[in-house]
């Protein structure tokens, strides 16, 4: 299996569709993303657990700069890729059920976005990763600026782009510095394998780690760097937002595990407490905001801040359990947040277009299937025992407990807060009397086509979280141990 096919198929299919007349664009983009999903499942089937880096493509891209077009899959990125292809496929189908102005351009950007995200997740070369990481933002700029919501959408998305590119550009400088310092006068080489063998001096690791951390934290976003989130989330069209929140923040979490911990272990240890405190602050702040805000999509946005806080907490426990929990929780969060946004869109359609929870109520009255599916998603979000999210949060807290007990104790409150804001959203929307101006109606078959498979995956992982843990354990453990080795 050629990973290049996996990366470029969505963009190529969308481009091909865009060049054809009529409604070929949406057909091209949707089929492209569905085939990509099939290909990623084929990768999963052929994947050898514990077999190290597989499906390797390694070509020299720019020999003068030592940049390789190197791709590969291992336990660390396997499920991130599956999550991305699954959520993009769902988003494409969802978007195809709606009408868009200039739809060929819309689907072209969506296809490019999928290609860039998969590229960032499969890249095994630092410069290639940075290139894809920056590139994946550009489609969202156009998607939001052109098809977004509200008069302030351009300002909102510009804020988003500038925030995230500030981080990304710092990362670019740091990446080049990493390669130059690692090469030590020899020919440059940006591949992860080379950089892992040629670690930098401790002092350099520290500042370079900070630059990378800035890029990843802005992208997630975590507490002090989340300023773009409310405006950006409000402006995005719902299908785009589902995939943005579900996938792009996970690329940042993946970046920590793939780059920050293995390549800059000393930096990771040096700033461990800072990162844990940022994570903790995000959990508390995100939960508090999710509990007080009334806009349903911002409730999900702030809950993501809290959830991403948990993931960073797990990563910077610098313990194997924590890292495993972080990977599992990344997959879980992506799986719950995308259907949650879809459900919010359905709710808003029933509440006269308003996304304010105060305008909702009693929507479960004539929509039992929708209510049940929402309940499953909500219970998974609040990490009900029996859900895969519970396993993820448990592993994360176990890891933190073993390394920083005080932080773990405070973080436990975050678990409780999650049930408060999630249940508040569910109760406000579904229970009570039917609010004036609302109509309670069941979701359509087309809605089910999108929602049911996602919920099925949530249920499958709830029953069998080992499916993920087994395949990821070797690489996540080694990522965490690279840093843990410094502590000893």
């Amino acid at each position, binding site marked *: 299996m050629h990973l290049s096919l996996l990366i470029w198929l969505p963009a190529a299919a969308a481009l091909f569709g865009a060049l054809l007349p009529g409604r070929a664009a949406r057909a091209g983009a949707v089929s492209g993303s569905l085939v990509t999903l099939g290909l990623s499942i084929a990768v999963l089937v052929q994947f050898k657990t514990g077999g190290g880096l597989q499906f390797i493509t390694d070509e020299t891209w*720019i*020999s*003068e*700069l030592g*940049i390789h077009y190197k791709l590969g899959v291992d336990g660390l990125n396997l499920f991130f890729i599956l999550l991305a292809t699954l959520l993009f496929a769902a988003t494409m189908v969802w978007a195809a059920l709606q009408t868009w102005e*200039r739809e060929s*351009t819309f689907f072209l950007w969506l296809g490019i976005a999928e290609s860039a995200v998969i590229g960032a997740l499969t890249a095994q070369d630092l*410069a290639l990763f*940075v*290139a*894809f990481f*920056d*590139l994946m933002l*550009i489609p969202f*700029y*156009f998607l939001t*600026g*052109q098809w977004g919501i509200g008069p302030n*959408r*351009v300002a909102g998305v*510009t804020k988003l*782009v*500038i925030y995230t*590119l*500030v981080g990304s*550009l*710092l990362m*670019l*400088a740091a990446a*080049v*510095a990493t*390669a*130059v*310092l690692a090469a030590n006068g020899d020919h*440059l080489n940006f591949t992860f394998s080379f950089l892992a063998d040629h670690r930098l001096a401790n002092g350099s690791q520290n500042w370079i780690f900070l630059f990378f951390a800035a890029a990843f934290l802005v992208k997630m976003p975590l507490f002090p760097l989340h300023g773009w989130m409310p405006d950006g989330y409000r402006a995005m069209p719902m299908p785009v937002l589902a995939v943005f929140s579900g996938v792009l923040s996970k690329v940042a979490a993946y970046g920590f595990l793939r780059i920050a911990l293995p390549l800059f272990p000393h930096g990771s240890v040096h700033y461990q407490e800072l990162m844990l405190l940022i994570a903790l602050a995000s959990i508390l702040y995100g939960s508090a905001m999710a509990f007080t805000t009334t806009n349903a999509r911002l409730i999900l946005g702030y809950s993501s801040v809290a959830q991403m806080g948990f993931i960073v907490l797990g990563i910077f426990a610098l313990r194997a359990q924590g890292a495993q929990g972080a990977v599992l929780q990344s997959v879980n969060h992506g799986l719950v947040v995308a259907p949650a946004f879809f459900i919010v869109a359905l709710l808003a359609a029933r509440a006269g277009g308003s996304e304010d929870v105060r305008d909702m109520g009693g929507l479960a009255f004539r929509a039992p299937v929708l209510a049940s599916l929402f309940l499953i998603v909500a219970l998974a979000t609040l990490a009900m025992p029996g859900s895969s999210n519970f396993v993820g949060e448990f592993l994360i807290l176990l890891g933190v407990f073993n390394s920083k007990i005080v932080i773990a104790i405070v973080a436990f409150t975050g678990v409780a807060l999650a049930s408060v804001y999630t249940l508040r959203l569910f109760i406000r929307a579904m229970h009570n009397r039917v609010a004036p101006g609302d109509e309670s109606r069941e979701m359509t078959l087309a809605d089910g086509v999108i929602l049911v498979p996602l919920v099925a995956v949530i249920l499958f992982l709830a029953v069998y979280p080992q499916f993920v843990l087994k395949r990821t354990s070797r690489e996540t453990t080694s990522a965490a141990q690279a840093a843990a080795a410094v502590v000893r």
Partner: protein
Amino acid sequence: MMLAVAKAPHMDWSALSPLVALFGGATLVLMLGLLRPRFVRHTLVPLTAIASLGAAIGLAIWQWDRKADLVSAALRIDGLALVLMILIFSAGIATVLLSWRAAAPVEAAHGEYFALLLTSIAGMALLVEAQNTITLFVAFELLSIPLYVLCATEMRRTTSLESGLKYLIVGSVGSATLVYGLAMLYGATGATDFAAIAKGAAGGIGTDVLFLTGIALALTGLAFKASVAPFHQWTPDVYEGAPTPVTAFMAVATKAAAFGAILRLFDVALVDSAGDWAPAMAALAAITIVVGNVGALTQTSLKRLLAWSSVAQAGYILAGVVVSSSLGSKATLFYLAVYLGMNLAAFAVIIARERETGLGDHIDSVAGLGTSRPILAWPMTLAMLSLAGIPATAGFIGKIYLIDATVDGGYTWLGVFIVVGSMLSLAYYLRVIAAMWMRPAVGTELTPAAAGVGGRPALAGGAASDPLDPTVAASEGTRRAEPEVVFVAVLFGAATLVGGIVPSPLFNLINHAGGALGIF
């Protein structure tokens, strides 16, 4: 009996042939321009100019592997000169295409306009070949004086005249500073040849006050031409006032030539005293990056915006010179080539919209371009993304190369300045993209009837320059820009994209030039 015999230097005509093609072309164009028939003036003259530039490119490629001193070592032909010449000549062809049906050649007479253009290009070719301070200065003046005139060729527009005058005055100050600096270098080393100056610099003269002052003044003079802050103040006004094809030409070709001279003087001749001048030049580069990007933030005229952006870009390019290594020189050249492509694409779109809308170069002229004219919107989008350094464009690779060179040369902080500058620049490059894709077209409601009834309709809020005559906008609302302008935009837009995905050919070209520099 003795006869005083003045022995003329040996002339290597094959190596000088690109210059001969340009000067011959200039003469021919001037003569043709005197003929009466409209066909000759409007079609044959530009065609001749293109032919002469094409011939110059062909002759340069013919001389591709030459490395030789010419005319008693006053000039030198080598990879660096040839690569820069090909870049400048390509920009020249693009300029001729953009000027073809512009107003400026009509007002200034076709023969003169294109002859001046060719002469200025010849001056640039001489400048990148110059091997001693005398030829450096002569070439510098030869490229500058025709440009002063070209800026003022739209004779019925005051801003064009003002632009020419301003450029003349500021440019003369720059030239005077340069010649003063060169004289001091002569005083310090007793030589005009770069090779001899290099020898003087190597011999421990680096702390000599006369020598250092000479370097500083020479750098200042060249910095004027390359719009390096704080010697950039003329740039926005001149760029805005000059006819847009001339602005495009100045932005790319003049910059390439000036940096060619800076490379020759600093990274070859004075490379051994780099410890003395590099920190000062690094400070200049940092200042230039900040000043250019901050200046561009509030601009509403696209030409002024690109003028400030060109100041910022000069700062990035200068960072490659600062490190005075072979890597740095190659990064500089690479970025110059990339810069040429993205700016020409952007200027071609501005010219197209000037002719299509009557809104001049106001940012509103590109509003709604994504829906109405995607063939222009895409090149402009690619140019803006590339200038900002977004991946999948050549600008991204160029930035990596420059950052690589700065970190490698021990100027990591300057590399960080480059990325900080890129962050600032996003704010204004994205504004242009947002105007094209995310705003409705301005003036679509401006039907001839509405313009006739309402007198001056509210239009393009705040833009008060004179091309905003609504009747012009209305009558030209359905005009389409000429195919050659669209061709330039699409060609260089596509080159910017392809260069970001398959950069190897460009790297090969630059390596050819870098091999000639012979440092380290």
